[in-house]
């Protein structure tokens, strides 16, 4: 893969120098888009598994990549061919396949950041099931749906500054506590009583407790408690 990148970089530099020497007089004029050199001008739009838009222009004309940087090794040139394999997933990209070959956080922005750059339709993109944290206390839920759909928040409102996209990252942090929230970290960035309800109010909106967690995990009534009294 590295060799591949080096080849790509070499080509960019070569192309750049050729451009400078041969077209020096035309630099100021708006460069016409050449489909033979840069690929299809209209963005490629995938509808499955979710709506994703890819612009050849951004990658070739603007970033200076050559066709063979991606074709046919990463993507088969034939339109829509890659989709039939069913292998084009975010998980595959995280493993360095497809877009993840460059979008790894080094060569280009990591594939688990800046979602909206490619996922132009964010609705339905966020996880449908609630996020459940069990540390430091059992259990806290977060609903993407409520925040994205009802409050029209973009992914980057929270990711990656406030919360890493990677599942379970916050849970591992020692400061993922209510005190941190009161100090304006994590949920407390908005849940401060001004932007959204304060973190020290309405506890049970997010805290579903051990019982709620058990129910969610499908082992309702798995442990006996003395809750027979009253209520």
């Amino acid at each position, binding site marked *: 893969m590295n060799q591949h990148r080096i080849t790509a970089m070499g080509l960019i530099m070569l192309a750049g120098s050729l451009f400078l020497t041969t077209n020096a007089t035309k630099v100021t004029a708006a460069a016409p888009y050449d489909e033979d050199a840069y690929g299809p001008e209209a963005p490629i739009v995938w509808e499955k598994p979710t709506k994703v838009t890819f612009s050849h222009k951004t990658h070739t004309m603007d970033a200076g990549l050559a066709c063979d940087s991606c074709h046919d090794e990463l993507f088969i040139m034939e339109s829509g061919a890659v989709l039939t394999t069913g292998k084009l997933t975010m998980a595959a990209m995280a493993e360095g396949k497809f877009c993840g070959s460059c979008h790894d956080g080094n060569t280009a922005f990591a594939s688990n950041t800046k979602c909206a750059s490619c996922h132009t339709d964010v609705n339905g993109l966020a996880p449908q099931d609630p996020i459940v944290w069990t540390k430091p206390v059992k259990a806290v839920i977060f609903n993407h749906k409520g925040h994205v759909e009802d409050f029209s928040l973009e992914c980057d409102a929270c990711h990656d500054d406030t919360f890493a996209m990677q599942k379970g990252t916050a849970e591992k942090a020692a400061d993922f506590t209510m005190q941190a929230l009161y100090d304006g970290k994590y949920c407390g960035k908005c849940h401060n009583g001004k932007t959204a309800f304060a973190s020290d109010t309405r506890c049970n909106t997010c*805290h579903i407790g051990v019982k709620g967690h058990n129910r969610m995990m499908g082992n309702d009534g798995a442990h006996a408690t003395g809750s027979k*009294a*009253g209520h």
Partner: protein
Amino acid sequence: MNIEDLEKEKNEGIENLPLQERRKFLKMGLTVTGIFLGGTVLSLTSASLASSQNDPETDIPAEGQYPYPKHYGMVMRQNRCIDCEKCVEACKQTNHVPTAHGAWRTAIQERLTTENGTEKREFRPVLCNHCNRPPCVRVCPTKATYKDPETGIVVMDYAKCIGCKTCMAACPYNARYFNEEKYAIDKCNFCIDTRLAEGKTETACAAACPARVRIFGNLKDKTSEIYRLLHTPDTKIWVLRPDTGALPNVFYMNA
């Protein structure tokens, strides 16, 4: 009235009788019995000094009405409870509460309601209320359960317990269980043997609570947090099942 006429009357049953009515009826019976026995049936409990503020809605003890030298109680700041059940874990570990046979000393109750389409959760921690007039103590035939004269904690003398479970039936809070290992009734005792005896000032559940829901302390001590919370003006305080007249020492508030 003729007995034959009475037989034709439909039995109304006692199901629809309010608790207060039943209590009045029982009290009348006890008073009559008391006269026969010398009038001291109810004084089996050592809490004759205890009284409430005469508010049937709350039964919060009046200022200066704490009969015990160290009058222990607990305040539950209910709306802070998140059902993490760290208290339950800590209690089980500290007091070796069995996992079988429905044994429990403290638990969290949950109430789910739906308000405008959204699910609402409420959690309520419960444990023995260490009542000033404990029905369990009153019914015990062997005096195996009693109010500790120093602290007011309702404790068990396991050697005296014959396991008749009358106290289990009498407890308005269902706070007692049969301990198979001890072959005796067991219950929350505010960690009197496991923590207080070691000089610790809090019960295991109170110490484990991350949200400081449970405030344990001596109501006699005017500098204690529990005293301050209970005597904060304009604070709504309630107890569970005040209608039983047991005068519990576990108080609930939202704070």
